[in-house]
């Protein structure tokens, strides 16, 4: 997935002279996860550069550059470190088009590795997406595989408004199925690991049905797409697994069609439960599919605690917990 993200930035730097890429350690070094490797050498230090450690400064300069007419692609080293930038994101980037009636815009892409599963402890494992979904004016995207990652990142860079692009770091090197005690499969063995060369897009705002099923709809995104697939396989429940890909704007039609068909719904995310994006999904499903629902909607999520270092696999909503959720949804 790292190569797919790198390719997306490479292509956009090449196609559009207004694209610039910057962040902490992204220049010469190529980023702590190597996502920007080689880009500075190729496009020079005024297109791809290191910055001081100041996430709010990164976002603020990106807003200024956006107002000028550039398309900044900013890396926040870990999603956990995006909080210093929330004011610039919420009060500025997300509001700029509105408050200036389109005179000034902020076509910024904010990339940030999110999620746990690498023993990163509470400050290298968070999934803060719900916060951004509450902020009108922000688009929030989380890919689950290299093909989508590249296509969605190109769409995000081309989007004329700010996009929060969260990259599940547990997926950088393979489609993690949720069994941390088994060997990692590389992306090369996964169909969506195949990434075409060159430019293509995956549209923002469109979910993908990664598995059709009749029994229950599973709404999920990021790492949990693969975990949900494992849970479906292991539980034998005929789940329809939907990879939301974009959280805002949400692809309501795909969700509603599926839940109307299955009559049941399980929502899976890694973030803490309370007021997580699962809450909004649950509200939307019951508002739009109330008369189709045969059982309560089930949320399988991270606990409402910080992500603990040594207990991360007890925190992580793995295949067992998801399967348990599927069964609960079927019984209800």
């Amino acid at each position, binding site marked *: 997935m790292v190569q797919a993200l790198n390719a997306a930035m490479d292509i956009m730097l090449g196609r559009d002279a207004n694209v*610039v890429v910057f962040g902490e350690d992204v220049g010469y070094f190529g980023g702590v996860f190597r996502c920007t490797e080689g880009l500075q050498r190729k496009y020079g230090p005024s297109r791809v550069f290191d*910055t*001081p450690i100041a996430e709010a400064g990164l976002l*603020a300069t*990106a807003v200024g*550059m956006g107002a000028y007419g550039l398309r900044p692609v900013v890396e926040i080293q870990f999603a956990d470190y995006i909080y210093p930038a929330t004011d610039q994101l919420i009060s500025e980037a997300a509001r700029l088009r*509105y408050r200036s009636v389109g*005179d000034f815009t902020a076509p910024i892409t904010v990339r940030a590795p999110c999620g746990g599963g690498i023993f990163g402890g509470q400050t290298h494992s968070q999934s803060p997406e719900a916060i951004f979904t509450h902020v009108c004016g922000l688009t929030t995207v989380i890919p689950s595989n290299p093909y989508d990652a590249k296509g969605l990142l190109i769409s995000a860079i081309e989007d004329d408004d700010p996009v929060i692009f969260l990259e599940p770091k547990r997926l950088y090197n393979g489609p993690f199925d949720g069994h941390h005690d088994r060997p990692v499969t590389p992306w090369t063995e996964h169909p969506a690991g195949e990434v075409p060369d060159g430019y293509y897009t995956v549209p923002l705002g469109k979910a993908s049905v990664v598995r059709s099923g009749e029994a229950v709809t599973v709404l999920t995104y990021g790492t949990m797409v693969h975990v949900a697939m494992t849970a479906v396989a292991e539980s034998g429940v005929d789940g329809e697994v939907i990879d939301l890909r974009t959280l805002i704007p949400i692809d309501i039609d795909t969700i509603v069609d599926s839940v109307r068909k299955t009559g049941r719904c399980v929502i899976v995310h890694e973030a803490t439960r309370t007021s997580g994006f699962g809450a909004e999904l649950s509200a939307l499903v019951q508002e739009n599919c109330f008369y189709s629902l045969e059982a309560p909607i089930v949320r399988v999520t991270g606990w409402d605690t910080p992500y603990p270092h040594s207990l991360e696999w007890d925190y992580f909503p793995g295949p067992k917990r998801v399967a348990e959720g599927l069964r609960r949804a079927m019984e209800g």
Partner: protein
Amino acid sequence: MKNAVPLRLHVPEPPARPGQEADFSWVKVPPAGTVTRPDIAVDPYEIRRHAYELIRVLDDNAAAVGPWDPRLDAETVRRGLRAMMLTRAYDERMFRAQRQGKTSFYMRCTGEEAVGVGQAMALDDRDMTFPTYRQQGLLITRGWSLVDMMNQVFSNTRDRLKGRQMPIMYSSKEAGFFSISGNLATQFSQAVGWAMASAIKGDDRIAAGWIGEGATAEGDFHHALTFASVYRAPVILNIVNNQYAISSFQGIAGGERTTFAARGLGYGLPSLRVDGNDFLAVYAVTRWAADRARANLGSTLIELFTYRAAAHSTSDDPSKYRPADEARHWPLGDPIERLRAHLVARGEWSDERHGQLAAEVDGEVRDALREAESYGTLGTGEHHSPATMFDDVFKEMPWHLRRQRQELGY
């Protein structure tokens, strides 16, 4: 190793509170013309002392003296005087309009007119500005339409911002005036980003940002100086030290033991402190900083030392926290009066011409007001359709906003 005395918290206190005599004895006002004017290529380290001086051009006889005298021709100076008077007349009229219920809120820049006006004149009109809510003088100097500004203040049917922003939060890309944010300080580091973009593109336009001395405490201020210094961004960073942040005197912002200009020293930025009520000095330092930026020499920090003569806003009553007559004691006088005296001293102005000009700018404001009011005021409630509320959240309206607009009946 133990201390002999117990520790104690120092909480800065202003020299005078309501009921006490105004006290500006702490303000050191050096004679005009005494601060050196270095070459723009100077090593910032060599001019560290400038951060503690006060660059002044107008002397006690209203003559322009010393190396910072920009030697402006009389016509240019009269243009500056006019823009300052127009700014003040506009402010007074809008203040009254708020009191008359025509809008919800207003903020004047009374006593600080030399900042917006003097700096706008020293910049190129194509340079980009990232102002606070007290630099309406920039727009006025650049000849922006008063009617358009009033439409914004009134949130009326012609308000280009569609009533979305509080009064005075102007925005005009055409005038190179960045959309004002209600959040303090955020625009200061954005100005640096804009300037970096201009440098990345090999453009020739520079940027300027403004911040109040109170807001310098925000992290954004530090980010601005850091990024400006690291990338040698072509940006002028202006601190308007008008002594107050709402009720808090500048000591609460950190001005008790040093100057605000000195903040720039630690970033290796040349840092100038200027008499903010001296139009010519303001013009000159701004021009110096602009020349540096244009020559790829990087950013300059300027402290404009001035005084907020009026209330913070229409919601504020300064007699609650400072001596009621404090403004009269401000040792640097009034920027309009000082420039008027200068023109008179040059033999380029008279009481009569001044009276004419005052009447002229009043008339201009009155005419604009008449027109703006014809498009409605917040008080009369004529405004854009509620349907417009859902536009521009995103470039393209997503389904959920369309649905919400329908819910509202549009």
